[in-house]
C-alpha cells in the first residue's frame, strides 16, 4: 500500500458504483410489477399519515403542546419523517443483517469482490419507501406555509444542512445498529428503538420530554441534531436546556461523529464474524 489515501478513494468509488448497480437492479425488479409497486408506495404513505392523524387529534384538544403550536410541531414531524425516510431508503435494508447471519447467506456476500457494506445497504432496495418522504414533505410544506417565517440565507442554509445531516445521522444509526447484529443476531428490534422510536420522539417538541432524556439525545445518540436543535434556530425559539448557541449549527459535526462511530462498529462487527462453516 504505497498510497493509502488513494486506495481508500478507490474503495469508496467502487462501493458507490456497486451500490448504484444493485439499486438499479432492485428498482427495475420492483417496477416490473407496477400495480404492486404503487400499492405498496401508497400503503407506506398511509402508514406514516397515521402518526400525523394522532398529532392532529391531540391538537383538537389543545392549542399548544409543550408550548409549541401545530405548525411548529408539523415542522418537527416533517423534518423527522423526511430524514428518517431518506436514510431508510438509502441504507434501511441493512436491518436484515441478523437474518443473514443466522441463515448463513452473509458468507455469499463476504466472498464477492465488492465491499460488503455496499452490497448490504443496496440489498432489496425499496423505492416504495419514498412514500414516507413524500408524505412528510407535504406536511413540512403545510407547516412552512403556516409558520410565516422571515427567510434569510442563513436559515435556508440551516434547512439544507438539516435534511442532509439528519439523513446522515439516521443512516449512521442504521449501519451501527446493523453492525450490532454481528454480535447479537436476534436483536434487530433494539435498532428500531433508535430509528423509528427516535423519529417518533423527534416529531414532538423537546419540551415534552424529561431533560435527562433530551440530554441523552444531545450527548448520547445525538438525534437532537437531526431536527430539534436546528429547529430552535429556524423557528427562533429559546433552548430549554440552555446549551451553547453554536450547538444549533453543529449538526455537520454530529453527523461526522456518527459516521465515524458507525464505521468503527461496522469494522469491529465484520472482524468478529465467524461463519458456521457448514
Amino acid at each position, binding site marked *: 500500500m504505497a498510497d493509502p489515501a488513494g486506495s481508500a478513494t478507490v474503495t469508496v468509488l467502487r462501493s458507490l458504483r456497486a451500490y448504484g448497480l444493485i439499486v438499479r437492479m432492485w428498482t427495475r425488479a420492483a417496477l416490473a410489477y407496477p400495480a*404492486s409497486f404503487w*400499492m*405498496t408506495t401508497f*400503503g407506506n404513505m*398511509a*402508514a406514516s399519515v*397515521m402518526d400525523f*392523524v*394522532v398529532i392532529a*387529534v*391531540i391538537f*383538537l*384538544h*389543545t392549542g*399548544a*403542546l*409543550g408550548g409549541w403550536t401545530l405548525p411548529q410541531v408539523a415542522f418537527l414531524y416533517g423534518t423527522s419523517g423526511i430524514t428518517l425516510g431518506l436514510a431508510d431508503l438509502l441504507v434501511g435494508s441493512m436491518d436484515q443483517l441478523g437474518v443473514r447471519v443466522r441463515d448463513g447467506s452473509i458468507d455469499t456476500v463476504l466472498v464477492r469482490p465488492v465491499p460488503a457494506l455496499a452490497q448490504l445497504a443496496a440489498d432489496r432496495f425499496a423505492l416504495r419507501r419514498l412514500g414516507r418522504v413524500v408524505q412528510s414533505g407535504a406536511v413540512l410544506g403545510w407547516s412552512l406555509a403556516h409558520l410565516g417565517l422571515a427567510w434569510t440565507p442563513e436559515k435556508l442554509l440551516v434547512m439544507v444542512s438539516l435534511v442532509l445531516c439528519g439523513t446522515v445521522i439516521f443512516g449512521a444509526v442504521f449501519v451501527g445498529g446493523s453492525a450490532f447484529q454481528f454480535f*447479537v*443476531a*436476534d*436483536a*434487530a*428490534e*433494539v435498532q*428500531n*428503538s433508535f430509528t423509528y*422510536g427516535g423519529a*417518533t*420522539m423527534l416529531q*414532538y417538541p423537546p*419540551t*415534552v*420530554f*424529561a431533560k435527562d*432524556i433530551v440530554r441523552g439525545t444531545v450527548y448520547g445518540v445525538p438525534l437532537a441534531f437531526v431536527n430539534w436543535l436546528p429547529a430552535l434556530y429556524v423557528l427562533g425559539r429559546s433552548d430549554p436546556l440552555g446549551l451553547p448557541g453554536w450547538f444549533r449549527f453543529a449538526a455537520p459535526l454530529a453527523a461526522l461523529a456518527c459516521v465515524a462511530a458507525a464505521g468503527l462498529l461496522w469494522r469491529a462487527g465484520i472482524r468478529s464474524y465467524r461463519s458456521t462453516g457448514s
Partner: protein
Amino acid sequence: MYAAVCARSFRRYATYRAATWARVVTNTAFGFIIAYTYQALWQVRPHLGGYDLSAALTYVWIGQAMFAFIAVGGQGALDDLQNRITNGDVAVDLFRPVDLQGWWLSVDLGRAGYQLFANGLVPMLTGALCFHLRLPQGGAVQEAGVWAAFALSLALAAVVSFALRYLVALTAFWLLDVRGVQLVYYLFCSFFGGFFLPITLFPPLLEGLAGVLPFVAVFQVPADLFLQRYDAPGALAALGVQLAWAVVLLGAGRLVQGRAVLKVVVQGG
C-alpha cells in the same frame, strides 16, 4: 392435544431470548415516548376524555405491555400459516385429522401467553417505577373483581385478535401476497382499537365508528376494565361484547376457511 400444541408454542417463543429482550427494550422505549406526550397533553387538559393523568399514563403502559400479546404490529404465529398457504404446504395440514382453526388458535394462544409474560411484565414495572400509575381501587372484594374481569378480558382480547388475524391470513388463499391487507389491519386495529389514543378523544363521528368496530375488543375494553371505567353491569356488558365479537369472528373465519379449502381442492385436482 390442543393444550399440548399451546404449551409447545409457548416454549418455542421462549427459545429466542435475545429477540425477547430486544423487543422488551423497544416496547419500553416507545412507552416512554408516548407517556411523555400524554403527560404534556394531560397537563394542559386534565381529565381529557374522562381519564385523569395517572389513568392516561396507565393506559399507555397497559398498551405497551399488551403490544406483543395481541400482536398488533404483526401476524403473530399466523405468519407461519400465511407462508404455508402461499407455498402450498397448507394442503398437507388439511389432510391431518385436526381442525385447522383450532390448531392455529392453540399455537397463537401459546405465543400470546409467552408474550404477555415476557413482554408485558418488564415494560409495566418500568412504567410503574418511573410514572405514577393507577391500580384497581376500592376495597379487597372490588379489587379482586376488577383483576378477575381484566384477566378474562385479556383472554377474550387474545381470541378476538386471533380471529381477526386468521381472517387476514386466509386472504392469502386469494391474494398470495398479503402485506397490503396486513398493513391495513395494523392501521385499523391500532387506530380504532384505541392503541394510539383512547377513542374518547376522537371527534364524535370517528368515536361512534370505533365503538361499533371489533377492534375496541382487542385493546380499549381490557384497558378500560382495568381503569374501572365501567360499573359492575357495564363491565359484564363489555365482556359480553368481547365474547360476541369472538364468536362472530371465529364463525366468519370458519366460513371463509370453508370457501378457501374448496379452492385448494380445485387447484390440487
